[in-house]
């Protein structure tokens, strides 16, 4: 099948749907997604969305907290823009129907979140992502947004240095389709599946980011991987920061509230990088529980509050850990949670590749710098998703109708035929497992040059093996084996980018903590690392950090 739209959005999560709705105001738009929209991981966001809507709060305070949280690596003009847009975003979603939790006066309720001096996370119990996403999904149904669901995007079609559309595999039939477009918005979310311990879903393989990378777009800040302090031991399902925002505390094996030592002021609501390192330190120094975890205590909050404001958490604890968090301690450990880096964009979502735009977790503006504050990612998706959609529609209006390059389809057809033909070789599942092990062991909370170099070498070997893996399923209809194989290729390319950037950055900043370079080094490293794809591996470049009015200083909480 050949379809043509003016703007095509890849990914149907919060950023993607917001981009589609915005682009749809001025252009013919369609969404291509490997999942049906409501299956996207935006629905898993729990805690909240930041906006300075209280009279006692201020945009400056929100911006300052975000920039300080980013360890001064965020681009300050972008942060200010996002914080200024935040109240509009929240009110718009409320007007569209989002069921925010309310204060007794009937206003949108706000709670404390990590690294913030004011309780500014607007929330819907502990299912804020789902509440916001459902509203957007409902709006997209109302607007009649065309969604090609369960289409796996294989590549971008590029001709004369500009994007002309994409090639996708229809999972339901096994057919290849071409989608011609004047502008493409990548919004495919995170890449956490490359880690063994992650809060991310099976589908978080960074597809759009990897495809854009291979097509020539620059990646940015790839060394900054966020580890969430509190994932449930075992499945690593997320336990929201909101649990601590509501008053929950972390305890080590001795029952000590150890965060008092690491962040005397904010304690258990310090930023995520600090708490994750604190937990790892407790465990490494023998004060963790056997098997490597600590306890989260939300018992003092009481059953009533837990069941109303932390209802999902209550359910998770019972379902996945068999415990009642109103009476028992929750076993938690850090797990990969979020990717600060992604396709490098400007404030309008434009990338280095003409016609390609990006938004959401798979993009990097950068508003999170080296460490994202909780409740800023939903905001980022809605704020920059809209801007990217508008910019893509404007770009499409200027661009002419160009022919779709036939070679792009042929290339993918050959690629799939080749893998389907291969009868011998190890299964890609083995390579995936090893990738996830390497990333968790060597590219985690604390890093060393030695570990990173070993990881880089290991990844190169895995890439080599990937070239000769085989499928177990060569059928046409819903070939999940083929989809997983394609996803693994994306994970591997992005993992190499993560490791290359992490090895390059010889300092500790935000989520990137090098044991061999424990200090932040503004002189040398107050800059972004950009990453360009080449067949020989990632090629790194540098870009300045845009600073407006917040001068970098030491970060204490």
């Amino acid at each position: 099948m050949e379809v043509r739209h003016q703007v095509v959005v890849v990914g149907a999560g919060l950023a993607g749907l917001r981009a589609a709705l915005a682009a749809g105001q001025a252009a013919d738009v369609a969404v291509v997604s490997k999942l049906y929209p409501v299956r996207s991981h935006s629905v898993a966001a729990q805690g909240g969305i930041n906006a300075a809507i209280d009279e006692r709060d201020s945009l400056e305070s929100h911006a300052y907290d975000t920039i300080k949280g980013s360890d001064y690596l965020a681009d300050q003009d972008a942060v200010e823009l996002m914080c200024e847009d935040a109240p509009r975003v929240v009110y718009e979603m409320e007007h569209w129907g989002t069921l925010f939790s309310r204060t007794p006066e009937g206003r949108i309720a706000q709670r404390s979140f990590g690294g913030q001096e004011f309780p500014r996370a607007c929330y819907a119990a502990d299912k804020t992502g789902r509440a916001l996403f459902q509203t957007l999904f409902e709006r997209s149904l109302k607007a009649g947004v065309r969604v090609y669901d369960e289409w796996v995007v294989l590549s971008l079609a590029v001709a004369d240095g500009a994007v002309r559309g994409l090639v996708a595999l229809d999972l339901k039939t096994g057919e290849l389709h071409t989608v011609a477009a004047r502008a493409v918005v990548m919004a495919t979310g995170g890449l956490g599946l490359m880690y063994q311990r992650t809060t991310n879903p099976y589908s978080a393989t960074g597809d759009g980011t990897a495809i854009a990378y291979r097509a020539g777009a620059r990646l940015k800040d790839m060394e900054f991987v966020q580890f969430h302090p509190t994932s449930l031991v075992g499945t690593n399902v997320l336990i929201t920061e909101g649990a601590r925002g509501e008053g929950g505390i972390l305890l080590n094996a001795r029952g000590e509230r150890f965060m008092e030592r690491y962040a005397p002021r904010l304690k258990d609501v310090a930023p995520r990088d600090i708490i994750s390192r604190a937990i790892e330190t407790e465990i490494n120094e023998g004060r963790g529980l056997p098997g490597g975890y600590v306890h989260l205590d939300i018992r003092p909050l009481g059953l009533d509050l837990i069941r109303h404001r932390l209802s999902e958490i209550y359910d998770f604890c019972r379902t996945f850990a068999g415990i009642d968090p109103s009476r028992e301690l929750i076993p938690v450990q850090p797990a990969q949670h979020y990717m600060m880096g992604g396709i490098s964009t400007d404030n309008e979502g434009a990338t280095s590749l003409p016609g390609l735009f990006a938004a959401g977790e798979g993009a990097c503006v950068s508003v999170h710098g080296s460490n994202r504050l909780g409740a800023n990612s939903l905001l980022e998706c809605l704020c920059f998703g809209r801007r990217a959609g508008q910019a893509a529609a404007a770009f499409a209006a200027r661009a002419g109708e160009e022919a779709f390059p036939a070679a792009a389809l042929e290339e993918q057809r050959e690629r799939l035929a080749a893998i389907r033909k291969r009868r011998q070789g190890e299964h890609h599942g083995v390579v995936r497992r090893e990738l996830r092990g390497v990333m968790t062991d060597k590219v985690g909370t604390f890093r060393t040059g030695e570990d990173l170099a070993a990881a880089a070498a290991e990844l190169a070997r895995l890439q080599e093996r990937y070239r000769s893996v085989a499928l177990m399923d060569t059928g046409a209809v819903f070939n999940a084996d083929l989809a997983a194989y394609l996803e693994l290729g994306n994970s591997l390319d992005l993992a190499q980018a993560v490791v290359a950037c992490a090895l390059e950055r010889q300092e500790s900043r935000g989520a990137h903590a090098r044991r061999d370079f424990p200090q932040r080094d503004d002189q040398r490293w107050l800059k972004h690392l950009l990453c360009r794809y080449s067949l020989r591996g990632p090629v790194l470049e540098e870009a300045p950090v845009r600073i407006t009015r917040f001068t970098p200083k030491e970060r204490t909480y």
Partner: protein
Amino acid sequence: MDEISFRIFRFDPSRDAEARYQLYRIRPEPGLTVLSALVNLREEQDGSLAFRASCRSGICGSDAMLINGRARLACKTQVAEAAGDGTVTLEPLRGFPVLKDLVVDQSDFWEKLVRVKPWLIPGPEPAPERERLMRLPAQQFDELSRASDCIFCACCYAECPMEGRHRAYLGPAALVKAYRFEADPRDAGSAERRGALDHPDGVWRCHHVFRCTEACPKEIDAAWAIQQLQRRLAARHLRLKGDA
């Protein structure tokens, strides 16, 4: 526990003339969910096995299937609990066309959802600059919040006996969604939704078998929500005052 058997429905329309069941042996570890077991199976034993999965924590609604005959989420079902007699039987959701193995075509489900106009339809008064105030008694807000918890997994459709017989019946999830807006004080869309709801294949098809309520992995009382819609519509027909 020793090894247990997974008996899985297999069907690939591009290759198989008819469906069959395939047996797999797995070694359950404590805490292993049916979904994790399936993922392991696919990576280690049989890559051709098709099922949907994403969040693995019961929020995305991808992995609804029949587990020992009952519609459940694979990620929220412990293998140890499901393997009472040493065998876990997995089949695709009842009432939907099978695409392959455990993957069904849900298009009919989405089409029904759209028919209830599942979006906020505000009244004529302009929206305020800030948020609309919303003061609801705690219990009412909880009911509303609960009704908005639907993850579209379609377990309720697979379990509903009416849905099984009447393809045209809107079904529990769509009606719960309708209720979520009808009960929202900011919504004024009753008249627009009435055509779909006040219809033999709308709310009146429900005979309160309560299988939807039993099946819902998010513990939404779907049958109760449908009754609320019936009450509202009945009050309208009878011109009664009240919450209609």
